[in-house]
C-alpha cells in the first residue's frame, strides 16, 4: 500500500504541481491518475520513487516513509515504465530488460535468461532479443519497457503515460494486454494518463486531478460515472456531453446501443437480456465496456 499524507510539491519557479494531496493506493490494485497536462499527475508518480521529493507532507510504502529510504535502492525495487519507452539505445532488447536485475547484482547470464522469459510474458518474440531499440516499432519498444519494469519482480509498478506515443490500434492492444497481465501478476500499479477511456479500462481506482495539482474526485470508474462530484469531473469524464448516456434502439431481436448523438456505440453482448436493462438507461458503469466496444 502506498499512502500520501497532505503532500505538496512546489517547484523552485513557484508553480505548485501537487497541492495538499492525501491519497491511498491500495495493494494489488491499479490506481489511475488522470488529468489534463500540468495537473501534477506525473509529479505524483515521480514522488513515489523519489525522482522528485515533496516540499511538504509524507509518502509511505507499507508504512515506511520513502524519505528515509536510499533513493537508488528504492528505485531498483520499483518498476518504472515511461512514455517513449526510455530504453537505452546502445543496449540490446535483452540487456535493456536485464538492466535492473544486473544493477541489483544478479549474474548477467541468469538475468538474460529471465529477460527472455519476460519477453514471452509481454508477448515479444525471442527473435528480437538481440535487436537494438532503434530497430523496433513503437509498440514493441513499449512492450520492452513493460518487460524491463517487471524484470526485478517489483511489488509496485509505476507507469507514466506508457501508451501515449503509439497509434490507437496498438494502444488498444497494449491496454488489453496490461489488463490481462495484471490479472496474472497482481502488482500495485500506479498509472498516469490523460485519456479518461484508458483510465476506465485499466483502473480499479481512478483519481481525477484538476489543474494545479488538486484532487477533484477519487473512486471506482462506476462511482465517478454515476456521481461526478462537480461540473469539472462531469465534463472531464464526458457525462455532460451525453457521450456516456447510452440507450437501446432497433428491434428487441436485434438491439444496438446508441449514444445521445445518435451514433452507434456497440451491440449487446451475446446472452445479455435487453429487457432487463432497457429501462435502466443511462446505465452508469455500463458506460465503460460499451465505450470500449465502440473504439
Amino acid at each position: 500500500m502506498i499512502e500520501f499524507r497532505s503532500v505538496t510539491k512546489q517547484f523552485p519557479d513557484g508553480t505548485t504541481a501537487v497541492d495538499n494531496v492525501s491519497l491511498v493506493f491500495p495493494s494489488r490494485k491499479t490506481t489511475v491518475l488522470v488529468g489534463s497536462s500540468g495537473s501534477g499527475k506525473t509529479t505524483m508518480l515521480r514522488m513515489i520513487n523519489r525522482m522528485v521529493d515533496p516540499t511538504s507532507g509524507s509518502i509511505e510504502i507499507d508504512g515506511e516513509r520513502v524519505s528515509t529510504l536510499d533513493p537508488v535502492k528504492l528505485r531498483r525495487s520499483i518498476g518504472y515504465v515511461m512514455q517513449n519507452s526510455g530504453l537505452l539505445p546502445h543496449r540490446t532488447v535483452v540487456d535493456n530488460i536485464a538492466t535492473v536485475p544486473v544493477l541489483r547484482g544478479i549474474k548477467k547470464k541468469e538475468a538474460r535468461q529471465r529477460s527472455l522469459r519476460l519477453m514471452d510474458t509481454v508477448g515479444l518474440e525471442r527473435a528480437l532479443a538481440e535487436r537494438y531499440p532503434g530497430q523496433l516499432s513503437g509498440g514493441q519498444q513499449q512492450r520492452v519497457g513493460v518487460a524491463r519494469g517487471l524484470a526485478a519482480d517489483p511489488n509496485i509498478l509505476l507507469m507514466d503515460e506508457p501508451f501515449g506515443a503509439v497509434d490507437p490500434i496498438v494502444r488498444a492492444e497494449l491496454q488489453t494486454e496490461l489488463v490481462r497481465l495484471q490479472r496474472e501478476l497482481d502488482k500495485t500499479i500506479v498509472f498516469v494518463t490523460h485519456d479518461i477511456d484508458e483510465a476506465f479500462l485499466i483502473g480499479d481506482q481512478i483519481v481525477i486531478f484538476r489543474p494545479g495539482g488538486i484532487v477533484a474526485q477519487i473512486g471506482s470508474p462506476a462511482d465517478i460515472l454515476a456521481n461526478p462530484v462537480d461540473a469539472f469531473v462531469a465534463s472531464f469524464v464526458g457525462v455532460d456531453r451525453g457521450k456516456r448516456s447510452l440507450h437501446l434502439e432497433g428491434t428487441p431481436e436485434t438491439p444496438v446501443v446508441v449514444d445521445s448523438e445518435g451514433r452507434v456505440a456497440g451491440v449487446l453482448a451475446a446472452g445479455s437480456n435487453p429487457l432487463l436493462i432497457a429501462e435502466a438507461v443511462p446505465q452508469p458503469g455500463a458506460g465503460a465496456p460499451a465505450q470500449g466496444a465502440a473504439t
Partner: protein
Amino acid sequence: MNQLFATFAWLLDPAHYAGPDAIQVRVGEQVEYTLLTLLLASIIALPAGLAIGHTGRGRTLGVQIPAVLRALPTLGLVILLALMVGLGLLAPLIALVILAIPPILAGAYSGLESVDRETVDAARALGMTGWQVLWKVEIPLSLSLITGGLRSAALQAVATWTIAAILPLGGLGRYIFDALPVQDYPKMLAGSMLVIALALVTDALFALLQKVVTPPGVRAGRASLVRAKTTHSHARAALFRHASFIRNER
C-alpha cells in the same frame, strides 16, 4: 614548377632518410609531441568537460575560459613561455596544451549534452547512481562526439607543433625554420607538405576511431541515427567555428 620538382626530388632523396635530421625521425618527433600534448590536454579537459556535461553546472565557465584561451596567439605564447621557463620542450608544450584544451572540453560537454534527457532520466529512474549514469549511459552515447573533440585537438596540435621549431627543438618545423635563412625553398616546401600529409593521416585515423566507438545500437537504429546525426552536425559546427577562429587568429 621547378621548385615543385625540386621539392619532390628532395622528398625522394635517400640522403634525407638517414641521420638525426631524417624525415622519419622528424615525423616521429612531431607525432610524439602531439601525443604528449593530447595526453596532457585530455587529463585536464576530459574530466572538466564530463563534469560540466553531467552536472550541467559550470557551463558558463566552461565556455568562457576556453574562449579566452583561444584568443591567445600561440606563437607569441611559445616565445613568452620560452623566456619564462627556458628553451626546452616545456614552453611549446604548455602553449600547445592550451591550444588543445578548448576542443576537447567542448567535445566532452557538448557530447554529454547531446544525450537524450529522457534516456538519462530513465536510467536514473531505474536506479542507476550518478556514476553509473555517466559511465553506462552518457559516455557510451557521446563517445563519438568526445572523440570528435580529440580529433579537432589532434589536428591543431599536429599542425601547430611546427612553430615550436623556432626554438632549438625537433619536429617537422625544423626543415622550415632551418631552410628559411638559406632560402632553400624545396626543403621548406617539403617540410610543409610533410606537415599537411601528417595532418591528413591524423584526421583520417580519428575519423575511423569515431566510427569504431559509436555504439552499434546508435548506428543501427534508424530513428536514433537521425537524432545522432543532427546533434553531430551541431557539435561539428561548433568545432568548425572554433577551428576557423584559430585560423583567423593565426
